[in-house]
């Protein structure tokens, strides 16, 4: 018999577009393994270089993905919100974290540990196979996106048009930025607009499911919380869609 808690988790997972083809009973298997974790703004969820492990579903709140800069400080790579998953690369390959994730607001996560993930897989459940397939697909999509970026750079360089074409584009870009500046707009101060665009009408359903979890989830344990000051600058962030769909 499923517990109330598992049912609440399941109802939330159901609002993910990627789980639309999964049987509700299959989602209960995953729901059973998820652990509720609260976070505060500026709280570190994991840090670049940490040993790999869990992936996290965001129930509500925002999470910022940060990369340490060689000259100090952090670069903001992405801002994620309710209905997204992060940390799945380390979940799949077990290697260390390649970026830092921290709360950009207060919020709540559902954590899937590597142990739970491996246990589901070792039982050769068809659900576990499909979930792994779905994660791999998302990672491959991200890879394709990253490779696209690199090949655009490499193609330009290799085609010997590095000097003329890139320099030309760069000057156009510089001029455009200067006009933006002349108009008195500071791009760093423009808040990133988070698109409401969930393809299906999951908005309200997800909100209700998230609220149900929030009402029952335990308060954060009074342990020492590691925080990070990543500044207020959110300009230039990539918006991520549901797992890897950018």
């Amino acid at each position, binding site marked *: 018999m499923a517990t109330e808690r598992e049912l609440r988790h399941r109802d939330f997972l159901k609002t993910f577009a990627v789980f639309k083809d999964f049987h509700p009973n299959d989602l209960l298997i995953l729901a059973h393994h998820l652990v509720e974790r609260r976070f505060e703004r500026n709280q570190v969820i994991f840090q670049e270089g940490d040993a790999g492990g869990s992936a996290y579903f965001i129930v509500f709140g925002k999470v910022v993905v940060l990369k340490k800069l060689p000259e100090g400080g952090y670069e903001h790579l992405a801002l994620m919100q309710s209905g997204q998953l992060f940390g799945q690369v380390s979940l799949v*390959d077990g290697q260390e974290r390649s970026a830092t994730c921290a709360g950009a607001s207060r919020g709540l996560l559902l954590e899937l540990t590597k142990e739970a993930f491996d246990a589901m897989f070792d039982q050769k459940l068809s659900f576990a196979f499909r979930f792994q397939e779905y994660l791999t697909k998302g990672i491959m999509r991200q890879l394709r996106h990253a490779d696209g970026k690199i090949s655009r750079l490499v193609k330009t360089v290799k085609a010997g048009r590095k000097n003329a074409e890139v320099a030309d584009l760069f000057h156009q870009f510089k001029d455009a930025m200067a006009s933006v500046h002349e108009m008195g707009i500071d791009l760093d101060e423009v808040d990133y607009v988070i698109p409401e665009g969930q393809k299906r009408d999951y908005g309200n359903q997800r909100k209700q499911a998230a609220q149900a979890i929030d009402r029952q989830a335990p308060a954060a344990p009074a342990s020492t919380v590691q925080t990070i000051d990543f500044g207020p600058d959110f300009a230039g962030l990539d918006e991520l869609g549901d797992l890897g769909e950018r």
Partner: protein
Amino acid sequence: MQRPDTDSFHAKRGRPMNETFHEFCGRVRIFSDFSEPELDELLRITNRVRIKKGQLLCKEGGDGDSMFVIREGVVRVVGKTAMGGIVPLARLSEGHVVGEMALIDESPRSATLEAESDVVVYTIRRSDFQVLKEELNPVAFKLIRALGREACERLRDANVQIQHYLHNPAELFVPDVLSGMEPPKETKKLTQTFLRFFMKN
């Protein structure tokens, strides 16, 4: 798609004469933890294909239905430039796995693969993989897991490469583009914003 030539495969040189499928797979990273019986299962859905020098294994934008493992020869990954030209992106040799997205994703091929020499490849078709998967065959589980790890490793490499370009923009620009722009910190910020913009468009 581009692989640096650091594949663990290349560390182990000295291919034995008449190497069997099983021996070969033992040297390919994604199959290295497959047991003998698992490799027997894998062999059941594997085809061995000979491709003449200059022929294409697949075409950018075309339908992808197979994954390739290069057994012999060299395969060139080529891309199209905005001007319609062709540029080589990478060269893949024995032991490299390529086109594996086709096994789980029906999206079109992201690059063209051309045989630079006469080539022998092992191919695994998506439809055959699907059958193993529906049987809940342990080999399907093992393969999906190996593909996941491989994708992670490639993604990590790609992200390192992107970060490298973002932090060393001078490698992409001729010096005079950046000269006369002060202060350096502002310049760096501008070039990084530009590179992000450039990679997206």
